[in-house]
Every structure is written in structure tokens, then in C-alpha cells.
């Protein structure tokens, strides 16, 4: 898997890059994930506001609901949940697509045309994920913060000034950058695992429809676990 990652990353810096294919994947991984990100972001923010208000009210600190929701989303939940959503929605599709291409000899056909499958299949996915994951995470954060305000401000009575004012005071640029770093890394993890599992679908998981199905399941499970493990390491380093 290490060699696979190395080869792909190397080709990102060696032209030509398949721009059109990268844009197509950007649309698939990024743009077409927006609906699910908005939905999960909104509801995550709303739940956080409920739970946060309940905990903070015990200490008479309801005013800190904004910072609590903001920091939780920006540093942790935004990058992690958006990465898990993209894994389920786009990562699984990437594994299945590349796996089917492997089974139906389409990847062999690419090689026989003298084309590098890494350049044609992997690099566009890597570029698309590295760009779209931080943006999706940002969308998740913004929608989540407003979802939190909907519950905290409109239902539970925390004022808009308090909610957003305290958030602005306590959320630093470093926190935002931490979230961006994380989502960038998660983007690489998703496409690394999902492309690898699809590319070696026949060898690693057996041939035919069952092989592709196993590869897809393994890709989603492994990506999700790696996202959480890597999240722990990044958090402990940036803490």
C-alpha cells in the first residue's frame, strides 16, 4: 500500500495531469456530496446544541454554547463526520468502479495502450479528494454552526449575539487550520485505501462480483477505522 501511495503522489508532481478527469472526480467527490454534508452537518450541530446546553446549564455557562458547538465542529466533528460521509458515498463508488474495471480487463486495456493507470485513475481521485474534503468539511462546519444556533438560539433562548460573539472570541485561526489539516489528510486516506482496494480487487478479494463487493466493504471499513485512528494521532500532535 505504501508503494501504491508513493507512486501516485509522485505522479501528481509529474505532468501531464488529467485535468478533465480530475474535474469530473471533483464534481463526483465534492459537489455531489454537498447534500449529504449539509444534512449531516445541520443535524450534528443541532444535536450538539441540545447536548451542550444541557451540560453547560448545569454550571450556569449557557453563554459558552457557541464556542462549544463551534470548536467541536471545526476541530473534530466537521473533518471526521464529513470524511466518514464521503467514504460511504464516494469512496465505496471509487472502489467499485476501479474494481469492476480490473475485473473486466479495462485496466489491462489502459496499460496495453501504453497509458499509466496510476496517472489516469488514481491521480485525479487524489487531487479531487485533497481539494474537496477541506471544502466539504468547511460546509459541514458552517451548516452545523447555524444548526446549533437554530436550536440554541431559537429553541433554548441563547441570544444570537452571545452565541456568535462568544464563538468569535474563543475560536482561533489555529483551530480552523487544524480542521483543514485533518480533512486534507482524511481525503488522502479515503482515496488511498479505496483506490488500492479497487485496483487490487481480483488479487486481494477474489474475482467476480463477490470480489468487488468484498473489496468495497473492506475499503469502507478500513478507511473509516484509519480516519478515526489518524484523527487521534493528529489531535494528540496538535493538542
Amino acid at each position, binding site marked *: 500500500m505504501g508503494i501504491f501511495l508513493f507512486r501516485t503522489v509522485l505522479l501528481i508532481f509529474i505532468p501531464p495531469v488529467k485535468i478533465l478527469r480530475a474535474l469530473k472526480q471533483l464534481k463526483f467527490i465534492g459537489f455531489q456530496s454537498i447534500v449529504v454534508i449539509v444534512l449531516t452537518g445541520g443535524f450534528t450541530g443541532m444535536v450538539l446544541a441540545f447536548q451542550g446546553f444541557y451540560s453547560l446549564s448545569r454550571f450556569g455557562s449557557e453563554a459558552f454554547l457557541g464556542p462549544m458547538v463551534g470548536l467541536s465542529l471545526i476541530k473534530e466533528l466537521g473533518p471526521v463526520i464529513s470524511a466518514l460521509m464521503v467514504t460511504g458515498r464516494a469512496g465505496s463508488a471509487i472502489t467499485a468502479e476501479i474494481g*469492476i*474495471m480490473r475485473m*473486466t*480487463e*479495462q485496466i*489491462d*486495456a489502459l*496499460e*496495453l*495502450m*501504453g*497509458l499509466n493507470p496510476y496517472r489516469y485513475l488514481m491521480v485525479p481521485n487524489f487531487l479531487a479528494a485533497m481539494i474537496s474534503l477541506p471544502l466539504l468539511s468547511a460546509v459541514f462546519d458552517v451548516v452545523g454552526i447555524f444548526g446549533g444556533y437554530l436550536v440554541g438560539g431559537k429553541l433554548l433562548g441563547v441570544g444570537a449575539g452571545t452565541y456568535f460573539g462568544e464563538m468569535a472570541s474563543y475560536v482561533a485561526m489555529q483551530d480552523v487550520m487544524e480542521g483543514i489539516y485533518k480533512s486534507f489528510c482524511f481525503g488522502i486516506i479515503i482515496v488511498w485505501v479505496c483506490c488500492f482496494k479497487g485496483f487490487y480487487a481480483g488479487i486481494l478479494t477474489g474475482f467476480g462480483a463477490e470480489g468487488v463487493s468484498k473489496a468495497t466493504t473492506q475499503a469502507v471499513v478500513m478507511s473509516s477505522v484509519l480516519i478515526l485512528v489518524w484523527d487521534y494521532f493528529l489531535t494528540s500532535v496538535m493538542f
Partner: protein
Amino acid sequence: MILIENLYKKFGANQVFNGLSLSVPEGKILALIGGSGSGKSVLLKHIAGLIRADRGRIVLDGQDMSSIKSRDLAALRSRLGFLFQGGALFDSMTVLENVAFPLHEKTRLSADVVERRAFEELENVGLSGSEYKYPSQLSGGMSKRAALARALITDPEIMLFDEPTTGLDPVTGLSILRLINLCRRRLSFTGIIVTHEIPRVFDFVDRVALVKDGIVYKESGTKEFLDSEDPLVKAFLGTLSDEEDNGSKEPV
């Protein structure tokens, strides 16, 4: 010219090739026949450099595939055409895009020229009117024709056909063989056809090789092959009498 010398390959406990040697002179076409699972398709993939042999040598136009550098391999492959058993058309592209793809990616021809060449090639294989269909909308014969058009658009000097008529009805199968013959006259390529179309394919090839137990059991011209008294050859030709068949202990 295609030259294979003393080829050995093992997958797990399965010894696929056991010192296989074969040669195809320039401009000639050889039909490769043998039982299912005898390694015919695997041999084509070895020749194309998709699988590496454990031992032995494969030489294409003077270049040894076992020691070729990746850059030279890419250049060599641009002179090689491969018709996959299932077609291996890119299912996210239309037929026209599939056929134009190698020229788009490997040449600096303008988009107009590439498109015109793709239209011409599709016309040559009798697929005019199907340019904007997707592979899933094609019949088996049409898929093979589209794949053939894609393989031939770069004017290859060496063509490898992996069971081009498998899964097709006899009429469509014959039309594919005739089409291959027409293309051969036009392009004069050297080729190997892996096939079970025996003896029908003999009208379109120069030589025949029978693979068994990881080696070339018999290689000869088509006439000599048809006249052979060897029981195994006769079994493949379907001319084995009942008495001979009962006497033969080895399964084909």
C-alpha cells in the same frame, strides 16, 4: 516477429507453462488452440507484458520483454493491439470515445482528425450508426467489433486476439473472423488468435499451435495440421473415430 523461448510460469501449485516455445514470423498469423485452462490467454498476457514469466524469454520485434525498460515497454505497446475476450471497452464512454481514446491519449492529432479516424474505423468494422451508444447497449458481436476498431485504430504491427468469437453465434463469429482477415490484409500485422473455432479459423491463419501440459504439443501449417494422424490433434479437429476415441486414455 514473436519469439517465445522456454517459458515457465506457475500460479501457486498450478504449473501453467513448462518450457513452452513458439515463434510467429513477421506478417503471419498463428491460431493457438488447446483445452480450456491450458494457458492460452495467459500466454497472450505474457506476450503483451501484463504478466511476467518465471523463466524464459519473450522477444517482440527484437526486444526482450523480460528485460525491457518501462519507457521502451510503453513504446512497444503502442505498436501492439490486443482484442480482449470480453472487449474491455470503457463502460463510461461511448463507442466513438472508446475508439478515439488511444489516439487522443497517445498522439498529438487534432480532435477533428481523431474523430474522423474513429468514424472511419467504426465504418470499417460495420458499426456506423452505433457511434454514440454505450458498451452496455451493444450486442456481443457489436462489442467485439467496437473493441477491434479500438485495437486497430493505432495501426498495430502485432495483434493478439483472445477468443474473438467466444459467446457469439456461428454467423456472427464467422463475420468477426472475416473482419479480422480484412484488417490483416489492410494492415499486414503479425498475430496470434486464441480460439476454439476449429477448423473454421484455419481459413484465416497461416499456422496452428496446439498447447497441452504447458508446452506446444504440435505446431504446423494448417494443411499439415488437418492431415495429422495424431489422436490428440484429431480429437481437437473432431475427426477422431469412436474406436480411436475409446483407445485414447488421455483426456483432451
